[in-house]
């Protein structure tokens, strides 16, 4: 029934968890977090290893979350306490995680899960093959979205949002901004790793290289969703993150169908993000041009009038009323 759109929809929902995490750092904390490229495979590695050791996949997925939260804590610590720049802090954690992930996977770069029962196979057994994964991922991502919506309106949630908006102000109101930032990064990377755990179960393997480019793909999804929804509230912003994730996977499927080589997609994604980030600039430049044109077309008298000193302006006004 869903035909070729089943796969991108499934992916979009599964990666939607990751995109919510990226939204949390990128938009709420105003922090471009590259830990993602490491915490995503971390979640996959933890879940895959745990499942092959006989741990229930639900617990394995949760373990993945906590692993990611730990990674986020490290990045947060590097950034807030050791004052390492946000980008570099993320890169350092990500780089270290590569070795950690290989360790967790017992030195292998790939763990197959084909023979294992996973959350995905369980859902497919219950609901049916076509809708199993979609229902499972959809359920998880909606729950997380709703919890996030609530959380971002709590007292702590408001403080977290203020950390990204106006750090000086919220510090003056008594929030330990370092602690909040670390916490935010922990939750975000927990979500990212959880997405990694779930994607590993979905594709039936964990691979140490599966994280490359996920941070940028996450950003692209956030931006894509915002371009369509133009969210003004938290509720719509998290919705746009999830929809952006689905849209991004659709776009990729479409691009592949249109004849793009799979290997070119990273470039397409990067260009998409660059374009979206440059958009405000482009708009600004257009506005400047428009103003300049408007100035040219208005009569010289008006322009003169504007540049007159205030005193003469008042004088001329008086004259006009006479």
């Amino acid at each position, binding site marked *: 029934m869903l035909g070729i759109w089943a796969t991108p929809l499934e992916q979009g929902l599964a990666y939607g968890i990751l995109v919510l995490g990226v939204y949390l750092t990128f938009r709420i904390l105003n922090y471009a977090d590259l830990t993602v490229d490491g915490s995503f495979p971390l979640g996959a590695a933890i879940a895959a290893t745990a499942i092959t050791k006989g741990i229930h996949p639900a617990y394995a997925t949760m373990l993945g979350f906590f692993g990611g939260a730990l990674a986020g804590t490290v990045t947060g610590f590097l950034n807030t306490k050791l004052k390492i720049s946000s980008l570099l802090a993320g890169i350092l954690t990500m780089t270290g995680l590569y070795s950690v992930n290989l360790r967790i996977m017992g030195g292998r770069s790939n763990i197959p899960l084909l023979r294992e029962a996973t959350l995905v196979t369980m859902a497919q057994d219950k609901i049916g093959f076509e809708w199993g994964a979609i229902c499972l991922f959809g359920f998880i991502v909606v729950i997380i979205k709703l919890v996030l919506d*609530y959380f971002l309106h709590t007292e702590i949630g408001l*403080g977290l949002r203020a950390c990204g908006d106006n750090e000086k*102000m919220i510090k003056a109101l008594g929030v330990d901004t370092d602690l909040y930032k670390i916490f935010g990064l922990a939750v975000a990377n927990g979500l990212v790793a959880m997405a990694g755990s779930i994607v590993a179960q979905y594709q039936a393997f964990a691979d140490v290289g599966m994280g490359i480019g996920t941070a940028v793909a996450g950003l692209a999804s956030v931006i894509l969703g915002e371009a369509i929804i133009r969210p003004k509230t938290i509720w719509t912003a998290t919705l746009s993150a999830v929809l952006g994730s689905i849209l991004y996977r659709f776009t990729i499927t479409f691009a592949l169908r249109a004849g793009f080589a799979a290997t070119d997609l990273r470039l397409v994604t990067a260009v998409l993000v660059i374009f979206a980030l440059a958009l405000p600039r482009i708009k600004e430049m257009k506005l400047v041009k428009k103003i300049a044109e408007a100035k040219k077309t208005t009569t010289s008298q008006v322009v003169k009038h504007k540049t007159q000193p205030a005193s003469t302006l008042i004088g001329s006004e008086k004259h006009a009323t006479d």
Partner: protein
Amino acid sequence: MLQIENLNKTFELGGGTFKRALVDLDFVAQEGDFVTIVGSNGAGKSTLLNMVAGVYAADSGTIAIDGTDITSWPEHKRAKFVGRVFQDPMMGTAGSMTIEENLAMAYKRGQRRGLKLGVARNRVKFKALLAELDLGLEKRLKDQVRLLSGGQRQALTLMMATLKTPQLLLLDEHTAALDPKTARRIIDLTQSIVDNHGLTVLMVTHNLQQALEVGNRTIMMHDGGIVLDLQGRKREDTSVDSLLEAFSRVKKERFLDDRALLA
């Protein structure tokens, strides 16, 4: 209420140069004092306020509020005692968040924050308080603060700083970015809030007229120290002109001192 003893702060400007922003500064404010602070650019006024709020750590000396030594307290912990309004209207509010969310954050100043909804039950209270401002903000609770004018933002910041009554209110040129009429409004508003709560206030201003009119005490800072402390009769007898004169005298004295040292 506020006791500052022998406070020193030196900034490293890089390249081996240093700036002594506060030099052996002593200052005591009584409960209910409304102190206006004047002094030329770079005198150390903002630094003094920042030190009291805990933005910078002291090199030496002590700061105490009501007998509690807070010198080593981090800024977020001092927020329990201190409310602040900055010069830049953008500085005191979170622009992407709504008016009611900003108020909700201020309502928890210096207290434990939890997992209860921030605004929820307080909306009625916020509405009533905003109505008192008479700026029409009570109808815009769900508007993002970045949509407000500078004056409206500053009025909101002032409300936020005093929503949870602070022991000490720090105002750093909080009307400097506003047009004269709005500035007047904000000053009146400041006055009424301070009177209502009997707050202790430190207010930096470059408006000498205002410095003498508002509050009960005026200090002048220069080169990181307090060079003039006016209160009571002495302050009443001081005019803007004589304050200006004091300004130039202070500068000259320092200049002569330096000359004497060099000679």
